[in-house]
């Protein structure tokens, strides 16, 4: 009885072909790579309060993809150019004005440009629209290689900047006094987010790729306070969220972004509730000891 029930569920969730189709194998591989990058970069994004930038860059990148579709170029190229260019633009303009204002204005202009490119497309720009929602079918072998290379670049940048980033994020004044260029660091970090965006959008979609940067890291921050451990937890949560998202999207044909966002929110709520319960138990324990 129990066996058939479990069997039915598992065949419904792990439906046929999920692991045998080449495009699905590519999707699993790409998905795992981008989740590792997003989980890691997300830790710093959360510490630095970069959720708005993480939300804006995918939409700016979407405009580039729409432009590339209009010019019959590779959408991924347009996506990467605009999301990394947007990161540089925000970093460059961010000096001497409120950061959130600059992000909002660059975001709006980016989307305006995207609307222009979409209107230039003579027919329904399916290639561009699929980047809005993300898709798991049609990840090619060469795209997996591109994703892996960009991911390596992002991870190398994070490894190289790890100590100054942590230092400058926790105590900016003393970091600056020790000769860390906060502005340079800021621009480089935005570029890391831009790269993470460029590889995440094709699978998760421009609307929701930021959820993978924000959610797992925020959940991890409720579970541990040590940076190294928090990054590890964040990566694990991101990978699991994306795996569940890909599996459910394959089963239903619904957008991956919807599932990833839902799982990420549940994971965050769970982590927060768990931390609250553990905290209460701890205080209860310590008071009873005192009593």
């Amino acid at each position: 009885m129990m066996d058939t029930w479990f069997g039915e569920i598992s065949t419904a969730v792990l439906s046929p072909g999920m692991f045998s189709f080449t495009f699905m194998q590519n999707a699993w591989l790409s998905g795992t790579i981008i989740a590792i990058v997003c989980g890691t970069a997300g830790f710093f994004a959360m510490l630095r309060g970069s959720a708005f930038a993480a939300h804006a860059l995918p939409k700016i990148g979407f405009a580039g993809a729409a432009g590339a579709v209009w010019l019959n170029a590779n959408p991924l190229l347009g996506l990467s150019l605009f999301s990394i260019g947007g990161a540089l633009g925000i970093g460059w303009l961010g000096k001497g004005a409120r950061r959130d204002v600059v992000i909002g204005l660059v975001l709006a202009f980016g989307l305006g440009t995207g609307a222009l490119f979409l209107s230039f497309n003579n027919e329904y720009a399916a290639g561009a629209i699929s980047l809005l929602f993300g898709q798991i079918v049609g990840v090619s072998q060469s795209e997996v290689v591109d994703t892996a290379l960009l991911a390596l670049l992002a991870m190398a940048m994070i490894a190289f900047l790890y100590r100054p980033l942590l230092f400058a994020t926790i105590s900016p004044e003393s970091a600056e006094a020790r000769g860390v260029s906060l502005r340079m660091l800021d621009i480089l970090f935005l570029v890391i987010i831009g790269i993470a965006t460029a590889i995440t959008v094709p699978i998760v979609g421009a609307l929701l790729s930021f959820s993978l940067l924000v959610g797992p890291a925020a959940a991890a921050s409720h579970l541990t306070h040590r940076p190294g451990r928090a990054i590890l937890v964040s990566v694990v949560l991101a990978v699991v969220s994306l795996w569940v998202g890909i599996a459910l999207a394959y089963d239903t044909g619904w957008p991956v972004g919807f599932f990833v966002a839902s799982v990420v929110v549940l994971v965050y709520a769970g982590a927060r509730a768990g931390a609250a319960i553990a905290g209460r138990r701890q205080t209860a324990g310590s008071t009873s000891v005192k009593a």
Partner: protein
Amino acid sequence: MTGFWRAIFAAGFFSNPEVQNALWLGGVIAVVSGAIGVFTVLRGQSFAGHAMSDMGAAGAAGALLAGGTAIAGFLSFSVVAGASVDLLGVRPRDRDVATGLVLTAVLGLGSLFLFFDTRIVGAPEIILFGSLFTSDPGLTPWLSALGAAVLLALAIVFRPLVFISLSPDTALARGVPVRAVGFAFMLLLALAVGESSLVVGSLLSTSLLIGPASAALRVTARLRHAIPIAAVLGLLATWLGILLAYDSFYWPPYGRGWPVSFFITGLVLAIHLLSRLWPPAARYGSTTAQRTARIGG
């Protein structure tokens, strides 16, 4: 001379009813967004303001799917979103993450709705990008009244809002209900954003909310001056954008017009960048003493 004016105002600009409706509604949105935007920029709530437009779009996508009207979806979702962002992000440190996660949850559902909308009507472009020219003229009186109501409510909470925005600690010490006034402002912001997202699409909403206001705050330190300046700058960008979009029907590459959102967002960004050439001495106050001295404009 007529040739010159003809070159600027393409034939029919002043007689076309769609253009007239767009000019009026765009004007209402620009003025309301400019006024609310001054406080949004001052209080560092640009992300929240943008998030509400996205969540309003999610509501509109759901409403269309359920056979309801876009206006109900936009307004209800942006108000609920505003309330939850305010309640979850009590400490400023939490606000960024709280906004991001509420946005994740709502936009996740919204993307599912939008996805089904594409199967049925092909609506994502309309919801995301909107167009002033396609707005339903029957809604115009209602939207104008809503805009007027938001401005009136802003005038009522003006003094305490200035106080809590500039020196929250002093305000708290003097017994001003900081949380309640902040919450009231969040609701006004949600109504303004919900309305403008409906009319001009969610991307223009953010642009008109924070661009003219940030330029105005750069030019003057007095809030009573900043609000009309922001409204006028917003009006300028909107009307010029409508004119350019109308003229662009004769432009390359395809001779069927460029989207009005492209022009308005570009003009707003240009206004913001130009305002940054203004001498920084006039920028918003740096010391508490200066700030307190300016309260009440």
